[in-house]
């Protein structure tokens, strides 16, 4: 009894988030014709597969009490490298893809090492990483490179049909696989739990004899990997490399993760939550498109207002039930 309660209590933000997502979706459904359809829901995944993937990496970073601003730019860099190698250098995807994946991973590794060994503040290191990655993609080329290659086109356009003549894309599958893996890592591996411990108190974690350094470096490496994987998905999505791709996406990601109930101060959060967070942002976007009357500035304001509504509601729910918790 107590047992279940306490679990609920821990996952409360998550539950609150999910129910609010449902609320928003149904709001859209009653308000707009054609909104309430399986495909609209699936499009949330298709259009945000890459966001889901970075959010997963970011979740670990944030749970450990850090932050990674470089992800957006890494997407741009990856897409750029992938594009230029496939088009200009005419390399086969089976070389290009590993290389692209390596980029973010290596950058992450470097960032992690800097943060750990010279204990620099993650915010700044990854900010530098952000500048660097975007800068490098400009250096490769300021112009956008369209990718015209059977493999990429296949990845882009293949539709995996689902019952009720709906469909999803390959990217969605990749994203979901990553999520599954991440959930496993987070909940039932030594590494995952160490991440939470570091987030709780790095000093204690160190005194408890946990491999703090190794873990921290790994966290950023993983995030880097996710970023470049997301970069590939993004490249499939856009079929092009471009230095301005995913501009400012790091903030969307952080927002998604935090909305998903992860504490920016570290120590608490769920990968699943972040996924819902992404979906929430997606729904907000969709609602606005369906609204179809908003001027550029009203769009911005609307996004802000919806965010606000959501966050405040979430807080209220959580506070409420925390009170209940105390009283039972």
């Amino acid at each position, binding site marked *: 009894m107590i047992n279940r309660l306490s679990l609920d209590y821990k996952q409360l933000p998550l539950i609150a988030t999910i129910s609010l997502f449902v609320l928003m979706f149904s709001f859209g459904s009653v*308000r*707009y*014709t*054609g909104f309430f*359809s399986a*495909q*609209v829901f699936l*499009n949330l995944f*298709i*259009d945000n597969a890459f966001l889901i993937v970075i959010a997963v990496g970011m979740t670990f970073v944030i749970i450990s009490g850090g932050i990674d601003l470089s992800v957006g730019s890494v997407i741009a860099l990856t897409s750029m490298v992938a594009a230029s190698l496939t088009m200009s250098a005419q390399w086969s995807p089976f070389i290009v893809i590993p290389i692209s994946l390596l980029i973010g991973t290596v950058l992450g590794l470097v960032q992690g090492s800097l943060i750990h060994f010279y204990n620099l503040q993650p915010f700044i290191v990854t900010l530098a990483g952000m500048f660097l990655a975007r800068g490098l993609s*400009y250096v490769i080329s*300021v*112009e*956008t*490179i*369209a*990718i*015209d290659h059977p493999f990429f*086109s296949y990845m*882009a*356009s293949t539709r995996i049909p689902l019952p009720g003549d709906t469909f999803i894309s390959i990217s969605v599958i990749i994203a979901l696989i990553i999520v599954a893996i991440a959930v496993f890592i987070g909940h039932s591996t030594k590494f995952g739990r160490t991440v939470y411990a570091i987030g709780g108190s790095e000093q204690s974690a160190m005194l408890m004899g946990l491999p703090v350094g190794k873990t921290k470096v790994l966290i950023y490496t993983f995030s880097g990997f996710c970023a470049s994987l997301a970069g590939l998905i*993004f490249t499939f*999505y*856009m*079929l*092009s490399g*471009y*230095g*301005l*791709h*995913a*501009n400012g996406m790091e903030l969307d990601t952080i927002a998604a993760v935090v909305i998903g109930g992860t504490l920016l101060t570290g120590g608490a959060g769920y990968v699943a939550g972040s996924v819902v967070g992404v979906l929430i942002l997606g729904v907000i*976007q*969709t609602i*606005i*498109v*369906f*609204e*179809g*009357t*908003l*001027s*550029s*500035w*009203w*769009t*911005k304001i*609307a996004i802000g*207002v919806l965010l606000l509504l959501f966050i405040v509601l979430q807080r209220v729910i959580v506070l409420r039930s925390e009170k209940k918790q105390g009283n039972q």
Partner: protein
Amino acid sequence: STDESGSNSDAENNETEETSDENAEQSESETTGEAGEKLVIGFSQVGAESEWRTANTKSIQNAIKDAGHELKFSDAQQKQENQIKAIRSFITQKVDAIVFSPVVETGFETVLQEAKDAGIPVFLADRAVDVEDDSLWVTFLGSDFVEEGRKAGRWLVEEMSDQEGPVNIVELQGTVGSAPAIDRKEGFEEIISGKDKFEIIKSQTGDFTRAKGKEVMEAFLKSEGENIDVLYSHNDDMAIGAIQAIEEYGLKPGEDIKIIGVDAVKGAFEAMAAGKMNVTIECNPLFGPQLVDLIERHFEGEELDKRIAVEESMYTMDQAEELLPTREY
């Protein structure tokens, strides 16, 4: 005002239902509707990153509304992914036609294909897309940035013909990587590259904004000072910022430094009227009516060429005075 917009869009929704239903049958058998029929047009705009863009948005929105069609507008906030999402949802909303100004030329293959499969005609406004299969869109109506660059170059060559070199040019680029920035640079260089009396001594991005334009120009003046003869700015806003910088530096914009801008926004005319700017190459955003006309002609079954240019010209200092009152953006 939100609930207000809410209510009227509610009203629209009912209409959407009918139209989209009719349209559903249509798209089965590619029968284009007969003239004057009320269309639902989805318009996905890049954003509102500049005055020019806002004017362009207004023009297209009004043109569509005035023609009695229903408009579904979506602003991509300068993000390609948003634009793709928008087009997707236009498709799920079964609009009759899609108009959009791509954020970049690349990367719209997939979604355009989806639009085609759904039998929805796509009209490109202002910017092209580079896609092999040009059956994916009906026509592209917009300005040719490279040509604008060339115009600027030609004017300069003309202007400087009697002067013997060297002519030192500083360039204020647009946002790094953006199509206008790349093309206007290319076109301009293409013209002057031949003549060796022209030299671009400094080139830096000013992000299309006044503030940056001013700041960068200051830096240029600091390092180059008097021996700058010409400023070529990828848009008027940066030029206007630069003009302030030049004045503060103590030189006469328009005389000591010849100034070329692109866009022909109102501000540029004011500057030219005041003799502070020499020329602006028009990049006309007000092609809404032209566009709507094209759409309707398409639905009347007319074949359109793939590339239709917007009528544009070039304005110099001496025309500015009388044109100024007529400029609406």
